[in-house]
């Protein structure tokens, strides 16, 4: 099922000035529930802008964003005519019903950032509290939860982002870069969002750090069955960790579907200048040399499996 749905989204910065810049142009995309969706594209292809649209930080200049079928930018006025027919508002006096609708729209707007948790690029620069614990608690506190609940949420966030308990009482400014990033991610996970959006979660980390972060994200998704969106420009990571993919290029969404479907259009990815995974390139070269392996291979594990089979088959035919 579609958790999030973008319809004909357009977004332009600084409209009406000489610095006008179109970040997104007629983008339509669907993000399915209980899956990891990767959004991939070059720098400046509009990825980050698209992520900020999902939790209402910015409003699209054109088009609509739906979360569970509800247009997140709709105003009470637009909804009156439709909602007044709903059973819960039908029995009320019209003015009371309108007030109730207004309050409901406000409530949803306020709650949006808790439902769609966004971890921005280089989130370690947003830390400000004295201790890691307090920093992770910032989001849950804004939700108006009880002390008890906040504590539970902080530990939940820390567990999923791989922070050990002894770090919780440290100052976030004393941590290493990778740890800081984990604190920031924990701060968003602690809000238990239905949709977790991570903008370049592994940018600037060493290969081991990358792998750990992505593994933690995957583990989080698999155990909570929430919707996760990862933005990246690394095809390798996307191929490895994502179920679905959306490809952005030149402010437009040029492909979407399951990872296999998108990678099947490798020539198209080549065209927009995205690096296809090295392993895929290797397999393509092998095929050109006349080695009979299937074309669409994009993870190392799969390649190893195929090549082993191939080798075995080869050995079998020789003897």
């Amino acid at each position: 099922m579609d958790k999030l749905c973008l319809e004909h989204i357009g977004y332009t910065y600084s409209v009406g000035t000489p610095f006008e810049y179109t970040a997104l142009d007629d983008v339509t995309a669907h993000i399915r529930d209980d899956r990891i969706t990767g959004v991939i594209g070059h720098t400046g292809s509009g990825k980050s802008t698209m992520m900020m649209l999902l939790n209402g930080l910015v409003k699209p200049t054109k088009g609509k964003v739906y979360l569970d079928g509800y247009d997140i930018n709709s105003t009470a006025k637009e909804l009156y005519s439709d909602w007044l027919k709903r059973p819960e508002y039908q029995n009320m006096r019209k003015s009371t019903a309108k007030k109730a609708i207004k309050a409901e729209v406000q409530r949803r707007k306020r709650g949006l950032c808790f439902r769609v948790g966004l971890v921005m690029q280089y989130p370690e620069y947003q830390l400000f509290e004295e201790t890691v614990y307090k920093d992770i608690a910032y989001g849950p506190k804004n939700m108006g939860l009880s002390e008890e609940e906040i504590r539970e949420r902080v530990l939940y966030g820390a567990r999923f982002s791989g922070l050990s308990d002894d770090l919780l009482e440290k100052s976030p400014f004393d941590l290493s870069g990778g740890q800081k990033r984990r604190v920031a991610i924990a701060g968003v996970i602690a809000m238990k969002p239905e949709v977790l959006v991570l903008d370049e979660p592994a940018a600037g980390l060493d290969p081991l750090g990358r792998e750990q972060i992505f593994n933690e994200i995957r583990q989080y998704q698999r155990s909570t069955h929430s919707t996760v969106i990862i933005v990246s420009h690394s095809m390798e990571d996307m191929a490895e960790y994502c179920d679905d993919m959306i490809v952005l290029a030149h402010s437009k969404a040029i492909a979407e579907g399951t990872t296999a479907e998108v990678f099947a259009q490798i020539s198209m990815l080549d065209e927009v200048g995205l690096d296809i995974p090295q392993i895929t390139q290797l397999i393509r070269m092998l095929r050109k040399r006349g080695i009979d392996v299937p074309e669409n291979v994009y993870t190392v594990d799969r390649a190893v499996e195929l090549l082993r089979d191939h080798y075995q088959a080869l050995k079998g035919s020789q003897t």
Partner: protein
Amino acid sequence: MKSIAFGQYYPANSPIHRMDPRAKVILTVLYIVCTFLCRNTLCFAALLLSAVFLTVLSRVPIGMILRSIRPLIVILTFTSLINVFMTKGERLLTPSWEIPLWGAHVWRIRIFAEGLWNALFMVVRIVALLIGTSVLLSYTTTPIALTDALERLFSPLKKIKVPVHDIAMMTTIALRFIPTLMDETQRIMNAQKARGADFTSGGLIKRAKALLPVLIPLLVSAFNRAYELASAMECRCYHGGEGRTRLKILHLRVSDVFAVLLLVAFGVGIFFLNRVGILYTMK
């Protein structure tokens, strides 16, 4: 990604944009002098024409310039009203209206032709001043070029031990980092909003408190940036202005000199036009 325009600089390729910034600073000063030299109708007409001419020459859209005048409307109205009602002259336009105040006091409204003229002249003067300076400097010169020009123009002060270069370098760096810090502020605000921060509701104290999660990371990163910049400058052996060459050497061209001379001629012209008594001459 998105380039926030700092100040009012409007990128275009016009004769004024291409001019040496030093010439532009001198021109601006001269132009300000000119606006204050004007005394009679003819001069102010010439002044208005020159402002229009500069605007056209700069290729800055007229809408942008009018927008910069908008905040001045209050001041313009205020000065005009003061001038209309307070100037005493010879040609009385109104019969002596009297508005009773309290007791035997009355306020006599008398509007003189001189008052109307003065009000008009004041408006033209302020508008020309604003258009002249913004078209000659703020719209057409990048802040960096401007500090560069000021450094060169004030370099004689080095003789009396004024650290001109250091002041210019500090100004340049400060100006350079304003857009960066603005970007950063926006990013951090967005990040905290994504965690449910609310900057718009509540009383003054609540709002000030809500800004803490933005200000602390901003300060931390500003200091980090400053340290990094200082090390980067030291790594490249920066040690002040002594013997330092520049990437962009300012060249005073014939056209720049010509422009300055033209404006001087304009000033002299105004000086003499002031003697021609047409319609009205300001006291």
